[in-house]
């Protein structure tokens, strides 16, 4: 699904990502974990072509993000950490339809996909509500609905549980798990919480812009976690 080959990314004079090569299988649930400032979000943004590497290449279903980031993006949705800034329109159903407008859906088709997506996430009752009136948990679901409506094959969640209470954390993680298990959507969960690893099958550990572990969750050990600067 996603293949990164020897990617380097530099911001000003500092390398944020250094020689990263990895592969994410279709249908997998991968956790991308690392301490703050380890380069997780920058790497995740490479997966949908928001950021392109200075050196090396990222391929999404064979599409080189440097050559055709738009088509790469159609395959990989991105739910941002700060979902407040992610909403373009002020009414829930309109915001969810923003991506579909860009995909040039007819109005009727757009409306039916939006309704269906809101229903799927059990937030149909919020369709006409102003996004500023939503709780944090609801905003997170609306942000997800906006991405899900576009029917991506893969979704990147950038620290989706930040600022959520325990109940909403569990809810969003259960939904993410459902999307992976039932809808077969490839999931990349960017996190710095070890507790969230229980949802993943594969784990990539980043430290100072380099991958220090990439493999099955069962192979992850305390030494690696400690080495990444994450508390056990």
């Amino acid at each position: 699904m996603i293949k990164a080959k020897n990617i380097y990314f530099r911001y000003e004079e500092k390398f944020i990502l250094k020689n990263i090569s990895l592969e994410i299988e279709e249908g997998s649930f991968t956790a991308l974990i690392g301490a703050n400032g380890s380069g997780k979000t920058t790497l995740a943004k490479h997966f949908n072509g928001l950021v392109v590497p200075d050196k090396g290449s990222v391929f999404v279903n064979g599409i080189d993000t440097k050559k055709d980031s738009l088509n790469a993006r159609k395959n990989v949705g991105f739910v941002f950490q700060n979902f407040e800034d992610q909403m373009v329109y002020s009414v829930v159903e309109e915001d969810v339809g923003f991506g579909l407008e860009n995909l040039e859906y007819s109005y009727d088709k757009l409306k039916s996909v939006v309704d269906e997506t809101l229903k799927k996430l059990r937030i149909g009752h919020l369709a006409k509500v102003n996004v500023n009136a939503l709780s944090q948990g609801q905003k997170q679901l609306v942000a997800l609905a906006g991405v899900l409506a576009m029917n991506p094959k893969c979704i990147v969640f950038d620290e989706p549980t930040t600022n959520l209470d325990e109940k909403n954390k569990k809810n969003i993680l259960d939904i993410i798990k459902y999307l992976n298990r039932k809808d077969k959507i490839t999931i990349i969960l960017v996190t710095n919480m070890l507790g969230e690893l229980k949802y993943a099958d594969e784990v990539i550990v980043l430290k100072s812009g380099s991958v220090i572990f990439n493999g099955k969750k069962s192979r992850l050990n305390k030494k690696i976690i400690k080495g990444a600067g994450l508390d056990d």
Partner: protein
Amino acid sequence: MIKKLYFGQYRHRETMLHSLDPRLKIIYVLVLSILAFLSKSMNDMIVFSSFILLCVLLAKIDVKTIIKGLRSFYFIFAFLFLMYLMFSPNQLRQGLVAIWRFLMFILISMILTFTTPISGLVTAIEKLSSPLKIFGIRPRNIATTVSIAIRFIPVMFVNFERMRESMISRLADFRKMNHIKLVVSLMLHKMLKSASNLSDAMYSRLYNEGIEINKILKLKEYDYVSIVFVALFILLIY
């Protein structure tokens, strides 16, 4: 947070004003703003104010909400009035007329944003600005800029309030220039960060300035009635 956001927020209601064609609403806003500017006699002002009040009632906008929404502008009203009082030869009357006009502009835009969802405004602005294509201007960019402003300006007010409270709780004094500078620079920093996040989010959802939104706008019976109604109102005043 919504409790603090009274201005510029769409509220879903089943009213005639809500279902009017957004293109017409934008044109009415422009026409009414010009009329407000041209109104000088007391009679004109009373008729105009009554018309706006009628629109507020038709749109089922809670008067309390309007009063709360106007709070942010009290300072500007006072400032305007003082300026007229100090520098205008006809002082009091001119100052009051200026405040009335400003109030009407705010109420007219409030009615528009309360009764029109942003997608409606975007589609309408896009359709109305389509002649600009011949100058190489992309209508969708204009429409999206307006929609983002409407979506984020109230959020900025709330952010400003939060920042102000947090600074006051640490004994900031806004009579001091360096504290004012600090809050302005923090706000700018926050706004630029939000703009950067939003731009990333829009590109990740395939924002394409070249496309036209497929939503078809057609005038309905209500719209024709409203055209007659507004035309009669213009004739009544002039």
